[in-house]
């Protein structure tokens, strides 16, 4: 297979999201990740549910299956178990993945099937014209909640860790610099990888992530997690996260202030569950955690599944048919 460029992964289908939708940038990063990560179009399958986000497979020149609302992780599990040689990606939205599809996401995560799940979180049901979703903040006004929504939102990271995920990462739609790399890392994870991508639905939930995602303030509003490196942030990388052991929480400190030195800054350990549990919940005014927040190694489900030698044909039906006591009209035999 010749080296493919990111354009080779684009289909001839006209992309039909609203002009200015964050999905365009994510699509671009995905195409880049496929090219740069050396994906084989014939062996890659994109499975999606229903939602604006879930249209993505039609725009990617690999095998693609646009299934039904919420069920993409289940369909993708079937694809992967049937043929573990395939590189299986799932595209889902916050409604698709957390409303109707919450159960399948839970079970994919705990089983650790080697799927690369991209969750386009725009905190709204885009395709059905803007009702609040399970990740919408309390008080979100929408056609189905004109007085503001009442439900506490699900935290995708907290949920994933609760489900026993082995990989959780977070990125921003417009972060063309980091997102492709993050997608390559998630694809390479052997097990279920969940990547939450903060996505701007400019029509129904415009700029809901502005305080976190805006490029010009990103250095201060985001902390990039890199395994083994200190959790620094700020334009000059002079701010960082410190562990408060008294109340088991993370706090933001500035190096050089109040006697804080670089040694006080917590080193990111992507294999630490308690740390990840704290990181995923960071919210403004603290910086929001980006990058690979949690990653551990664990045998993926399909490997155990195929290890059982399932599906191999080592006995003949002809013999099975005559299992047990057989009455042979030419004489009884066992």
């Amino acid at each position, binding site marked *: 297979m010749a080296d493919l460029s990111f354009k080779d992964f684009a*289909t001839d*289908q006209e992309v039909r999201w609203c002009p200015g939708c964050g999905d365009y940038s994510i699509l671009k990063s995905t195409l880049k990740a496929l090219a740069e990560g050396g994906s084989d*179009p*014939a*062996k890659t*399958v994109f*499975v999606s549910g*229903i939602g604006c986000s879930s249209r993505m*497979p*039609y725009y990617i*020149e*690999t*095998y*693609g*299956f*646009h*299934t*039904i609302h919420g*069920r993409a992780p*289940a*369909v*993708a*599990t*079937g*694809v*992967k*178990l*049937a*043929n573990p*040689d*395939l590189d299986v990606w799932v595209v889902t939205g916050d409604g698709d993945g957390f409303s109707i599809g919450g*159960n*399948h996401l*839970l*079970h994919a995560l705990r089983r650790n099937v080697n799927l690369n799940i991209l969750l386009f979180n725009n905190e709204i049901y885009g395709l059905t014209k803007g009702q609040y979703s399970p990740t919408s903040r309390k008080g979100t006004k929408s056609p189905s909640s004109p007085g503001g929504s009442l439900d506490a939102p699900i935290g995708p990271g907290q949920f994933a860790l609760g489900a026993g995920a082995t990989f959780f990462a977070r990125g921003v739609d417009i972060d063309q610099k980091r997102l492709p790399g993050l997608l390559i890392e998630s694809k390479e994870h052997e097990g279920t990888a969940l990547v939450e991508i903060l996505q701007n639905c400019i029509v129904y939930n415009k700029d809901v992530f502005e305080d976190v995602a805006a490029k010009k303030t990103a250095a201060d509003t985001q902390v990039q997690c890199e395994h083994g490196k200190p959790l620094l942030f700020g334009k000059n990388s002079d701010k960082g996260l410190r562990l408060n052991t008294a109340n088991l929480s993370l706090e933001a400190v500035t190096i050089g202030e109040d006697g804080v030195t670089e040694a006080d800054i917590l080193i990111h350990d992507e294999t630490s569950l308690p740390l990840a549990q704290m990181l995923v919940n960071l919210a403004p005014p603290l910086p929001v955690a980006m990058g690979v927040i949690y990653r551990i190694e664990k045998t993926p489900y399909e490997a155990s*599944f195929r290890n*059982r*030698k*399932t*599906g*191999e*044909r*080592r*006995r*003949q*039906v*002809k013999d*099975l*048919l*005559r*299992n*047990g*006591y*057989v*009455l*042979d*009209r*030419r004489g*009884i035999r*066992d």
Partner: protein
Amino acid sequence: MSSATDRYVVRFAGDSGDGIQLQGQQFTIASALSGHDLATLPDFPAEIRAPVGTRYGVSAFQIQFGGNRVTTPGDAPDVLIAFNPAALVVNLPALPPGSQIIVDESAFTEQRLKRADLASNPLDDGSLADYRVIAIDIASLTLQAVAESGLGNKDSLRCKNFFVLGLVLWMFEQPRESVAEWIEAKFANNTAVRDANLAALNAGHAFGETAEFGHELKYEKLPVAPLDATEYRTITGAEAMALGLVAASELSDTEIMFCSYPITPASSVLHHLTALEDCGASTFQAEDEIAAICAAIGASYAGKLGVTSSSGPGIALKTEAMGLAVSAELPLVIINSQRAGPSTGLPTKTEQSDLYQAVYGRNGDTPLPVLAAATPGDCFTMATEAARIAMRHMTPVILLTDGYIANASELWPIPDFDAIAPIETRKLPHATNAFERDATTGARVWAEPGNANQIYRVGGIEKDITTGNISYDANNHQAMTDLRQQKVASVADFIPDQGVEQGELEGSVAVVAWGSTYGTVFQAVKRAIAAGMSVSQVHIRHIAPLPKNLGELLNRFDHVLVPELNSGQLATLLRDKLLLNVVQLNKVSGQPLHVSELTDAIHQLLPGATEMSVASQHSTTVAPQHSKPVAPQHSTTVAPQQGAK
């Protein structure tokens, strides 16, 4: 005693702990090895393990065995073996006067009578006057027989079932060898238990020979059944289904991926299949029924044959995803082991009430083929047939079976596997378009990921008929709708013409049935024919599409009688597809149809044809066919007699 019959019905009943099902299975094998045809029905309590001695805790196993086509476990037992008072009292209503009852008299203690909610002892109070009762102190006799084994009292008493089995084998002159072999294999590592069980088996046998009332128990040895295939075995529906699936795998050289979520009575197919994972199958227990069908669809997308299996409530959950499989044009087999509904209903009881759901139960115009297995062994044939249709027409297929078929066993002629035609799939590695279609069936190519020629996208939104991409075009939607209908309709070009199972190709009454009533209908029609009546049996295995000649065939009869364990679902289909005025016989009590109920209905249709008087508490009218259309559900229903529960 001697009898003019060519078949006997025996029912074992007791607590789960009495090893009832094991006795039944072993007796079944022995009967088969004697060359008898047979049909069995295990009858489990609804509770997992009900308290000892309660009525609702009674476990039973019924077998009919003997000559010339045994197709039901029998309406009424000739012999009941009751291990305790509860087992006696719950089975009594099914016993005809004069039948034989064998009880363990040691179990008729005050305490156990109370457990069975009995105020007096039926052995003494005259309530068994109409029966031939033999009370044996089975407990003591067993203890005596195994005294030498060195087992304690409790373990010794656990050999009771083999004592009884020995006795019953003696009664009917069935061989003990297979039972002895089974005991030896099973308890190879525990010689004390092995020897005790063997001793009990032999003692039971000897007891018949020596007991003073032995002659009362002796039944005339039945002749070997006139069987025409060379090899037979006993098989349950669940076993046959699992075998049929791996057969389909071998025939198509395609792995079966069986994805399901446990539910009664469907789980047994999953259980049997887990033992066949080295025969071309893999099994995946999903988090729910929706995930199960979706994983199966994913497997089919990836080039394996996805199969999913459930019962009514679980099938309901799968209906949305069936639409996806129809839209994506993927092969898929959906097995429904029906149970009594609505809702949770009576999970351990049988019913045929999911035909509507199978044929009509989806949103949109979403046709798919529907098949139904008739008997336990038929599950093998229909499983391969379902897989064959799925892969030939690139469509999901529903296969209906039920709890009765799943658990019952029959003597099954082992098919000649080499004679079964291989299954061709639509995998065409050199095709470059996944939507290239077969000219006859309209089926698309089964494009397999991994093949660089066939990269494509597909989904549940209406797709362009030639590219698979999303299309909102009105003419395309009409064309796809028509194509979906035609694809399913084309199945009829591949299935055999509808024939009759018995009787002439024209006449007074055609009894048209589907599914597990096969055996009952067979017996009732056989009797009617023997009584000189003009009755034929038509059994439908292809529910959708129906065989092409069915309308023509049925129009050659004056009456079409449709017995069903539902409120008239096949009847609806026949009216819908053939505009046929049928007479319904419906029973929805969770119990199988009895031969006598159908016989009554036939006699009501042909009152002059026999001298038998038909006692029925229901006034029933039978509207002749071809008459001016009437609302059939109002006027042409024949109600089964109730009470004979």
